[in-house]
């Protein structure tokens, strides 16, 4: 077994439940390599929702919370507010984050709370048997779109940018080193950071989106059909836009704003509140 993963994974829970060739294992390695590189293992807490991709942190031998469907970001915000010194990593999928958890994504982005979200986008609901997800590309034949999907897919990274996230990057599983560096930058970044990973699901999206169940073929396709975005370049049409899309350090962070507001009240003269003993005394006098 790999020496790095051996130190970070729970041996009793292995092997993972992922199908052969699943992209989640690649994201798992990238996240662990980033945590190991930064040396923040005791300060890290991972949160995940429901879905294949939400099983990624469940094998980590560190603080992990496996929560309800779509609400991973809500739980993560609560955890961050309760323990602001923790680095919170959220692992969600496209169905978890963009469909049922879209509301929480909106508010977390707008608040600019210091959380790192890794959105593993495999274009389909993999665990439940290949239903159409909000990120499924057009004309993909899935279990719930037998005549081909006709919705325009939701782009996770662009959605987060428009909602006000301050660090947004997109990579595919064919870019493992860049993905690791982006996760490191996202953890270091003070504010909401979202890293979208286009991942392969050889079992379900291999059948309905890519037309081949061979994971190596899908990864090669992802590598060839993507380009790395740099500012001011001519953008080719019909290709996956990869790279760091936005990195903004100017917006204030939610917990800083909250602390500043609380300090206004702390510095003000405290209002005298009667404690229970005094209330009892007044009652006895009244009697």
């Amino acid at each position, binding site marked *: 077994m790999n020496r790095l993963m051996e130190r970070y994974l729970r041996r009793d829970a292995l*092997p993972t439940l992922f199908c052969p060739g699943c992209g989640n294992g690649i994201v798992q390695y990238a996240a662990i390599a980033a945590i190991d590189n930064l040396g923040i293992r005791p300060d890290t807490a991972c949160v995940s929702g429901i879905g294949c991709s939400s099983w990624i942190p469940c094998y980590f031998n560190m603080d992990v919370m496996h929560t309800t469907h779509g609400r991973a970001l809500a739980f993560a915000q609560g955890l961050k507010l309760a323990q602001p010194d923790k680095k919170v990593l959220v692992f969600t999928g496209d169905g978890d984050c963009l469909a049922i958890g879209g509301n929480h994504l909106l508010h977390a982005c707008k608040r600019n709370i210091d959380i790192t979200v890794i959105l593993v986008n495999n274009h389909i609901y993999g665990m439940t048997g290949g239903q159409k997800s909000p990120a499924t590309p057009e004309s993909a034949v899935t279990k719930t779109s037998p005549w081909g999907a006709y919705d325009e897919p939701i782009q996770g990274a662009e959605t987060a940018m428009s909602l006000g996230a301050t660090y947004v990057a997109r990579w595919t599983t064919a870019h493992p080193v860049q993905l690791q560096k982006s996760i490191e930058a996202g953890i270091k970044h003070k504010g909401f950071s979202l890293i979208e990973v286009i991942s392969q699901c050889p079992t379900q999206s291999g059948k309905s989106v890519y037309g081949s169940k061979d994971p190596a073929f899908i990864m090669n396709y992802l590598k060839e059909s993507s380009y790395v975005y740099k500012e001011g370049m001519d953008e080719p049409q019909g290709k996956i836009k990869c790279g760091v899309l936005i990195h903004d350090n100017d917006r204030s962070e939610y917990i800083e704003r909250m602390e500043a507001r609380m300090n206004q009240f702390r510095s003000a003269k405290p209002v005298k509140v009667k404690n229970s003993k005094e209330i009892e005394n007044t009652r006895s006098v009244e009697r």
Partner: protein
Amino acid sequence: MKISIDNSFCKGCEICLAVCPKNVYGISKKRNSYGSAMPEAIMESECIACRLCERLCPDAAINVEEERK
């Protein structure tokens, strides 16, 4: 270079065969615990330790160790 592949973790997805830039891997007759054919490092001396197979193995089965001379 010493390449070891754990047969209790390998699921036989053959990503390592496709991504290796030096074509170090080949399919062997050994079977992993899932019953599918396992890859094998047939040209270990060609390995340049880029560690792409380590990174892209979804099941953390591959370990590449550099031998110090």
